[in-house]
């Protein structure tokens, strides 16, 4: 099986590449991204491609002629890029890679990384939507993900192959750059105790396992991949022994500006999650993919444990025996 992984330079992309490398049925792996891989890759071939460099991306994809595409080329605002760059990069990457893949003769399956942000949190929207609920994104990131799903569906229709859209809950992990993770780990965290609703999270390792499982499951349609259970923002802050600062209405603008000064800018979808909640029914994905994600409670607990990781200074001294 020849597998193309876009977004291989990200934490999730590199982990997926490592997992695919361990699978003997995978004969060739090619990766593309704006950034180089975060960890060592062993038998994958990596190409550094700007998301807007459509000509290079199309050329590489057609030459490789993949059987399976794992499209992780999605940029979360304020994760590693600014919101405008993230929006442009996500759209350009989806169009060039998936558009080129649609014409590849060997293509058998497309798997795209999406998110439960596509359901949106408009007033009266379903609290815990399953895959049958129509999408209605209410944040720029949700709209970007909905666009990726739309492009993938069009590419799948042209190629006549199944398209799996993995709608991940916000991914948090020990080393993944997440604006939500950074924000929740600030010493003082603004929360809205009067309006907040619960949200669910997904551990980065579970996201990687789900992506790999989807490569062979050949499911046609969306799947919600969500850590069971939920927490509210105030609860998460108290679990981390941080100081919750109650904020209401326009106060969020000030809270967002202060968080940005502290190095934890809060994008629109994360603020929406903190005030309006964000969760989904992940039952179908657990059945189809056979992946049992860690609970949201566990993910939050681990989020605060990482703060205590020791980073020893390098030393040239040799310990005497």
């Amino acid at each position, binding site marked *: 099986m020849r597998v193309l992984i876009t977004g291989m330079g990200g934490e999730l992309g590199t982990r997926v590449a490592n997992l695919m490398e361990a699978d003997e049925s995978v004969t060739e792996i090619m990766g593309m991204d704006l950034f180089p891989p975060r960890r060592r890759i062993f038998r994958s071939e990596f190409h550094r491609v700007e998301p807007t460099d459509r000509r290079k991306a199309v050329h590489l994809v057609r030459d490789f002629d993949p059987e399976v595409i794992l499209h992780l080329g999605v940029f979360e605002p304020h994760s590693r890029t600014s919101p405008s760059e993230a929006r442009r990069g996500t759209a350009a990457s989806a169009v060039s890679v998936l558009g080129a893949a649609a014409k590849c003769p060997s293509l058998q399956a497309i798997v795209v990384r999406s998110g439960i942000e596509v359901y949106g949190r408009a*007033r*009266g*929207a*379903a*609290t*815990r*939507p*399953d895959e*049958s*609920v129509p999408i209605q994104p209410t944040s720029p990131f949700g709209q970007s993900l909905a666009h990726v799903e739309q492009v993938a569906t069009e590419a799948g229709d042209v190629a006549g192959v199944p398209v799996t859209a993995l709608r991940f809950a916000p991914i948090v992990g020990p080393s993944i750059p997440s604006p939500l993770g950074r924000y929740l780990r600030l010493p003082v965290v603004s929360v*809205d105790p*009067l*309006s*907040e*609703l*619960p949200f*669910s999270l997904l551990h980065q390792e579970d996201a990687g396992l789900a992506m790999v499982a989807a490569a062979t499951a050949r499911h046609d349609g969306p799947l919600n991949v969500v850590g069971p*259970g*939920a*927490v*509210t923002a*105030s*609860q*998460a*802050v*108290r*679990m*981390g*022994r941080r100081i919750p600062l109650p904020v209401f209405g326009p106060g969020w603008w000030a809270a967002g500006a202060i968080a940005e000064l502290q190095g934890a800018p809060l994008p629109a979808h994360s603020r929406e999650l903190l005030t309006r*909640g964000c*969760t989904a*029914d992940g*039952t179908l994905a657990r059945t189809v993919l056979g992946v049992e994600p860690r609970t949201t*409670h566990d993910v939050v607990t681990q989020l605060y444990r990482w703060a205590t990781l020791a980073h020893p200074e390098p030393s040239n001294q040799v310990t005497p025996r």
Partner: protein
Amino acid sequence: MSVNLLRRGVPGAQALAQVHRRSRGAHDVDEWGLDPELVALANPVFALRWDIEVRGAEQLPAVGGAVLVFNRRFGVSEPWVVARGIRQATGRFVRTVGVPDVAPVGPFIRRFGGVLDRTDEIAGLLRAGQLVGLPMSRDLRSRERVGHLDVERLEAAIETGAPVVPVALVGRELGRAWTIVVGEPVPPVADGGPLAAAELAESTHRAAQILLDESLPTSWWF
């Protein structure tokens, strides 16, 4: 220290332990916003407000989802009465439908089990094995008639195969004493099809009316 107080049976120690747990965020909140510990903490307040008698609770499934269709007059006390009464009788939470999605009222009621009035929301709860309280429309003129039942909402029960149980509520909005009478589950419509929800709603409405007629005292003053 809290554990020692609990072991010694000091009054209020359990509530104190719960408050301590909450201060550390170690309590549970489900995906729809229900906070079981908060409900337990608010129990004494609810006990002052309502004195509820429940009949026929054995008709409710011990596990798995079910839709409880209940009458209401003004609709202020009824959702709380159903939720509290059924929880006292069976130990199960009832998710009453009809929470406004407006802060701070909506999130507050959700902590006590309220959910939005959406068919997909009800279907999701039933798939998760929850009891869903579905109110009929308000009937301000008479306490002897049950209101209309939204046919679309029962599609969730048909989709998930959950039983529909009529429930009659008897009580006064400003009074303390309430009676909940749980009826037999309405037989599911066998052939399905587009009329299934309408026929199920009709059968449920009829069953709820009969149950209310039987439950009402012959004279209100007695």
